[in-house]
């Protein structure tokens, strides 16, 4: 066991990086669930697609990283929009489990389709030159790109929170979430809100995918394990609670990283163990209210 303060600080930062990805994904999952009452199993696949848009953009069109941060969410969001309006929409009147199963089918198709197109092995994606190297924070030296990831994740989560809780658009979304019938009666097109919300949620996943690209190898299965971690995180934070999802995302990232310092073998399972404890003592999640219809 290595408990030097320097190592611990580094691990906490690593935890914040992972937590940032969890938070972005959990945020999208929660927004979608809040509005559509569906759990998007394909959220990890959308994250993977975002990374591939950045990768192919760079390979084929010399698309720079910062442009990819804008382009990939648009592409992935458009894909999600098409998926929602053509297929997913047909399942809303049924048991929500069918939505989960349909998005699970989408995972299989997207992932193996991508394996067929790009090969199962990963490809590296270069860190943008501007963010290469390391930064001296005074108490520790840490890779600049990873600091950038933490900052961007925090900013995006905060911005989404403000939009949903404070803006007129957010008010409509919340209204459509609480009382869809009544919102429609006020002349608000909830169908477009639903499609837009789904597209925005998966665009967030695509955005996270671009951020992850320089950090890990871009592979068709990169969304595979992160989606299950994210499921556990939204169970912990309370699915549908934006604040809960984001907080749980960052917190669990850090907890898993610090846990790995104390007892390395537990690093992969700690999130799930925390989830079990939360179900035992607070079944609706830390920030969740009464059981939502699901």
């Amino acid at each position: 066991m290595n408990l030097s303060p320097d190592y611990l600080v580094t691990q906490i930062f690593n935890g914040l990086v992972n937590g940032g990805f969890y938070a972005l994904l959990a945020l999208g999952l929660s927004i979608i669930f809040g509005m559509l009452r569906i759990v998007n199993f394909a959220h990890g696949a959308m994250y993977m697609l975002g990374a591939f848009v950045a990768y192919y953009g760079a390979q084929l069109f010399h698309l720079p990283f910062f442009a990819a941060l804008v382009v990939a969410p648009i592409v992935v969001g458009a894909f999600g929009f098409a998926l929602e309006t053509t297929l997913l929409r047909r399942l809303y009147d049924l048991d929500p489990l069918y939505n989960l199963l349909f998005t699970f089918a989408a995972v299989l198709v997207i992932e193996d389709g991508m394996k067929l197109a790009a090969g199962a092995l990963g490809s590296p994606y270069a860190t943008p030159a501007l963010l290469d190297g390391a930064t001296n924070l005074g108490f520790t030296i840490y890779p600049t790109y990873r600091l950038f990831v933490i900052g961007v994740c925090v900013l995006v989560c905060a911005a989404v929170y403000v939009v949903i809780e404070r803006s007129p658009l957010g008010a409509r979304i919340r209204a459509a979430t609480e009382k869809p019938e009544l919102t429609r009666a006020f002349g608000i097109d909830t169908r477009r809100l639903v499609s837009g919300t789904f597209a925005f949620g998966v665009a967030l996943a695509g955005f996270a995918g671009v951020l992850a690209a320089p950090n890990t190898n871009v592979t068709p299965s990169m969304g595979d394990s992160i989606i299950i971690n994210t499921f556990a995180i939204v169970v912990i934070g309370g699915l549908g609670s934006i604040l809960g999802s984001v907080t749980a995302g960052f917190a669990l990232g850090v907890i898993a990283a610090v846990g790995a310092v104390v007892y390395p073998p537990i690093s992969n399972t700690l999130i799930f163990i925390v989830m079990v404890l939360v179900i035992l003592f607070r079944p609706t999640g830390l920030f969740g209210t009464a059981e939502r219809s699901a």
Partner: protein
Amino acid sequence: MTLALIRGRRGLAAGAVLLACGLVLPFVPGVYIVFAIDLVCFALVAVAFDMLLGFTGLLSFGHALFWGGAGYVATIVIANGITSFPLAVLAGVAYACVLSLVVGALAVRRSGIFFAMITLAIAQIQYFVVFQLTDVTGGENGLPITTRGTFFGLSLANDFVYYYIALGALVLGTAFAVRVVTSPFGAVLAAMRENETRAKSVGYDTDRFKLAAFVMSGTLAGFAGTLYTLGNRFAGQDGVDWHTSGAIVIMTILGGIGTIYGPIVGAALYQSLDFFVSKTAIGDKTNLVMGLIFAIVILAARRGIVGEILHRVFDRAPRLVEDEDRPDVLVPDVSHEAI
């Protein structure tokens, strides 16, 4: 109506047809015996899964926990020199039983989507533990064994002998599932699925019934898993991977939830498709096809193959005939509905 195929004479006939198919399967030209063994094991796990999904409405996305976990336990028993097939199977089944009791007690606290997410997440714990206990499980390389052990003195080295033992297990497991879902216990499950609040209000502790169904399903899934790994003389990472949980879900729904026999057909279809697709240019990316088919089933044929057939045959809208008193009005024909 889902019980239409399971109950009484019709159920026996359906079972007999499937059994006949099972008996001749190894002699069908082009069918490899090891393929047939895998098929029968997956059919059994799909039946186990249907007991839960079809009759309680609980969607577990973690049945690889029992299937793969029990498979590892049985393989570990034999790898450690205890070459008794019944003991190895028993150890695996006991593991699945205890595990399903613990996981079930936790998971039934939530329902619907949450139940699916929680079972999925808990199954990941075992997945990582299997990887990390390399001394016991072989880690990434998996755990090969040289023998399937002996069955009361009978060697199981012959694949045909093993196939018919596995088929016998499928018959027993299916009979058990049919017995459970047609019992008064099964009737309570059906009542809960239709209206849980009402079942509660007439005094049933619904969580306990859900847990009981979960344990039966998990234990039977574990039984199937032991037969699978011992049949292959190998316990590997695939068995505990969540994709396997997903494959079990697909087989069951493809065949038809709540029909018990349907999932057997679903498993057979899934395995065959997987086999044929893997021979094409797609190679091991068979999930591309499986996912497409599953998406179509979810969108357009949610009763599954057997379920849709049953629906067409038994649930047809009654024929309209002229009313005896008022010849200008058409009413449903009920003349032959004395069943």
